[in-house]
């Protein structure tokens, strides 16, 4: 019990500091805010899940809800899955084993991020191919411009101008 509490405090310290840093950065103020964290009253901050379990839960889709991760969903199934992850972690299973266990049961769609293997590479490389292709097109466009005769503009003959103005007549007049 004491050990757990001690660990919790270490975590507490860490998160306190990193969160304080953000506000410090933005405000540009230096406030020593890390004083006196003695807590009063009964603490039962019993964190059901270890950070690693939360992280694993965040990699899994809740199978029964739309677009929420197992970590963020409050459905019963997601809760059970979170607990199962925690149990498996305590039993010494690795992250890969746990993820594989869920993939075997629910299919690949349970993973929030498709694995990088097989045809899933198409998904991962697609945007890069798009970006490179777009860049190439852009370079080609600029090249073509460069090789074309410089940006000299042909003067429009004045009679042509008059003709056009006549043609445009009432319609061409701007509002």
């Amino acid at each position, binding site marked *: 019990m004491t050990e757990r509490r001690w660990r919790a405090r270490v975590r507490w310290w860490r998160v306190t500091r990193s969160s304080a840093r953000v506000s410090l*950065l933005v405000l540009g103020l230096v406030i020593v805010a890390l004083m006196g964290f003695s*807590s009063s009253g009964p603490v039962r901050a019993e964190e059901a899940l270890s950070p690693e379990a939360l992280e694993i839960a965040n990699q899994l889709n809740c199978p029964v809800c739309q677009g929420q991760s197992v970590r963020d969903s409050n459905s019963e199934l997601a809760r059970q899955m979170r607990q199962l992850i925690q149990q498996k972690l305590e039993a010494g299973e690795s992250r890969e084993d746990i993820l594989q266990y869920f993939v075997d049961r629910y299919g690949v769609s349970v993973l929030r991020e*498709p694995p990088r293997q097989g045809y899933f590479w198409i998904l991962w490389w697609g945007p890069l191919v798009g970006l490179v292709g777009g860049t190439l097109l852009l370079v080609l466009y600029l090249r073509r411009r460069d090789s074309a005769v410089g940006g000299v503009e042909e003067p429009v003959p004045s009679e042509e101008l008059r003709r*056009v103005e006549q043609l445009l007549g009432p319609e061409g007049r701007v*509002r």
Partner: protein
Amino acid sequence: MAQLGSGALILALLLAVYGIGASFLGVRRRVPELLASAYRATYSVAFLILVALIALVISFLRHEFRLAYVAARSSRDMPIQYVIAAFYGGQEGSLLYWAAVASSLGALALYLHRHSDRALLPYVTMTLLAIVTFFLLVLTIVASPFRLLPVTPPDGAGLNPLLRDPGMMAHPPFLLAGYASFTVPFAFAMAALVTGRLGSDWLRAIRRWTLLAWAFLGIGLLIGAWWAYHVLGWGGYWGWDPVENLALLPWLTSTAFLHSVIVQERRGMLKVWNLALLLATFALCIFGTFIVRSGMLSSVHAFAVSTIGHWFLVYLALVLIVGIGLLLYRLPGLQSERQIESVTSREGGFLLNNLLLTAMAFAVFWGTTFPLFSELFWGTRITVGPPFYNRVVGPLLLGLLAFMGLGPLLAWRRTEIPLLLRNLRWPLVAAGVVAGFGVVLLDRWWAVVAYAVTVFAFAATLQEYWRGIRARRRNVREALPVAAWELLRRNNRRYGGYLVHLAMLLMAVGIIASNAFQLERQFVLRPGEQGSVGPYTIVYRGLDDRRTRDAEVVAAKVDVYRGERYAATVESYRFFYRNYEDQPTARMGIALVGLDDVYVVLDRWEDDDTASIRVYVNPLVIWIWIGGAVFVLGTLTLFWPQPVPAPARLPRTVPGMAREA
């Protein structure tokens, strides 16, 4: 009411078909009377669709449960604002709303441009009415909101609980209005392609209408994010959900258009590209509207069930074929008037901006539709979740932010490098200072980079303002606030645009912080117990059962302390609506303490009031909403009427027109 509504829709359909025929014949045979009657038909179509919409709303208000649509979406105990909002709570009503917005804005555009762009108008009318006809066909044949039930039920089922929220009252109307109002620029684009008249008047008209649609869509997305943050309870505001992504896509492509159209306006380049962007934007709007309807992406199998999907698929194909066909047909006439002279120019900057924006849109589109292909070709269902998008879109977004700072410093045609470097000096110094502090204080390197880039762009934009203000003060001798105001008023397109940039940067501050430094903990607490997360301590006070007219509410009261000091008391709610008891919804308890959001989610509870509570600390999320407010203000300044000196414009338009004639 049902008869009135469906009658109005059928009449509108007939008139729309007549209008298409009349404008076609009128422009072919050159009969001005026929054209005038086609325009009047357009006005009447808009009026009739509005009549149908009002009839539907009145049916809701009078609780006419004989209508299947009303019975399925409202009930007697619902508060009146949700009874009204229920009309777009389902497929039929939202399609009717779509058609109403598209036709009214189309009619308005027709009226406003009746003198200026006469040659385009017949084709604008045709395109507009063709689009509206499609929606009217769907509304009268497949999905009529005025279908009657054989017997009148005593009470309705009530609105989907997720929609019973203030955020949801505003989010769908804005988003759908955004989708629908892209009809107008699309109609103008088609008209310009048919007639070959792509002069600068056309451009100015189309830019304004695109801006309007873009603003609607942007505000809709923003309200959607706010709603998700307050209701969905996963501590975030953007989940890369397929439906969200599809709404983002047209916004990205139209943002690209709004930038590259400046190049066309100033330098007569990129005509094909701009038209392609408009076409893509409209196609994506149809795609988005239809995917949301069909439920095709969230569950691929729903596609077969939905009858409306096929209609939209055919329609989308039609839009693309006609659009691309016309674009190819006009390709020879769409040559650039000038050529790009240097890569380090404003034009080059806009090109790169477009590259990044379209690459982003492509990546999002790819990730969103990949599950479809996966199922189609490999028979495997997969999910593409936030990790993919964060990894792929994040770097592109960062590049875009950097360009937001760099782009305005580039000059048209070509930039003197020493001058550019001199202008870059202060923004780079600011970025360097932030990076230095960041390296010392923050432990996520990517957040340091992102903040440095954000501050660089922010400083560069402010410097642009400052230079503008200084120039005014030198020339006109105005007081500082007057000069700032006049600068924005007289040059609203430029400085209003920068205001939108600043809004995006403010949002970036919040987005980066909440992604990098979010804290989360889960507690199981009995009343009076406490837990701590980061520098915060929460004390759980207990549960409270309440009743409202249409729901049972469970509220968990939580005190928030920062260190030892009391900061706030929040309540996190669960709502159980009648008929939807199995789908409880929620409203989060969010306390703004300093710059952190302490975000309390009530997960579950037991009879002895033991509750499972999740607490997130989301730093700086408030800046996203502040940025959102600035975005709205900046967008409003873009619509400021500008008296443009007319004589200066005519000579400039002539060279372009001469070539097209």
